[in-house]
């Protein structure tokens, strides 16, 4: 596989993961709770720690899976494993379209309510950077049922690129995953309120649902075209 193809797959996978809403929603919650309680500087630090937490867990998961593939699956995923990933992406696309969001004028997700309340409570109680970091890691963990197959594909792509580009590929993936969160940070930093961002999410819920679903379908079509055939 050429490096360009690997980077294209990583970009698509990153885009699909970036379209998941749990980490992003958690960041909005943290912003909302922290801006009401702390100074702006502290809010900035907390949100930075949150983003870092989410990214580090993602990085560790991808690196761990890459190690596992290289040790036990012989340098790259088998054709069958790649097909399973494609199947999971298609199933995830269906879930994104049909089940991911709850009905109503809100952006609530189909999470167990007790868990959602727990994240809400934690966001309000977050006072220092370690707590914010943990909240970030928790949100990345909670997203794993949707993102695990993506991790496998990305890890596989990273292993397939030439050795000197592997770190670059991982960083490239993390950058794409972090884009929505970084965009929100810049948006708020430019004097906008986080409530405006949330209102935008509610107003364009159907659009975000479509983008998430389309990105998973595109990823699976891309995988079928270039990795399976």
């Amino acid at each position: 596989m050429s490096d360009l193809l690997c980077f294209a797959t990583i970009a698509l996978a990153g885009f699909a993961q970036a379209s998941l809403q749990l980490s992003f929603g958690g960041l909005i919650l943290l912003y909302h709770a922290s801006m009401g309680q702390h100074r702006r500087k502290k809010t900035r630090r907390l949100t930075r720690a949150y983003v870092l937490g989410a990214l580090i867990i993602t990085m560790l998961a991808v690196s761990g899976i890459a190690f596992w593939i290289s040790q036990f699956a012989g340098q790259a995923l088998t054709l069958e494993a790649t097909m399973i990933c494609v199947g999971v992406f298609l199933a995830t696309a269906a879930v994104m379209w049909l089940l991911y969001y709850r009905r109503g004028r809100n952006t609530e997700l189909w999470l167990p309510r007790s868990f959602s309340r727990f994240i809400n409570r934690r966001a309000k109680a977050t006072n220092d950077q370690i707590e914010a970091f943990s909240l970030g890691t928790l949100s990345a963990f909670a997203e794993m049922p949707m993102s695990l197959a993506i991790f496998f594909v990305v890890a596989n792509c990273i292993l397939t690129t030439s050795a000197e580009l592997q770190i670059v590929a991982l960083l490239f993936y993390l950058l794409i995953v972090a884009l929505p969160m970084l965009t929100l940070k810049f948006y708020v930093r430019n004097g906008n309120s986080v409530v405006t961002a949330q209102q935008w999410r509610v107003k364009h819920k159907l659009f975000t649902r479509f983008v998430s679903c389309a990105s998973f379908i595109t990823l699976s079509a891309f995988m079928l075209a270039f990795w399976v055939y």
Partner: protein
Amino acid sequence: MKKRISYEYSSEGVRQSILRHAKSLRMPDGWAEQIAQRVAKACDVWIEDKDIVTEDDLRIFICKELEGISPDLAYSYHNHDKII
């Protein structure tokens, strides 16, 4: 059966919670304080002749009051727990 928790109504609690939401909207401090006091006072009057109210009733009343003063704040107050 879910255990119901009851607690004493606190005008200061209402004021503080509105202030927190106003701050997260980056409202000027003076304006935020004024809104919080006005709504807390309206709550005190509304609750005076009631023995018991649910948290939802109180929240709906506060949102109705805020709607006339600052729709953004009312939106924030009403939807803060509906983000994820």
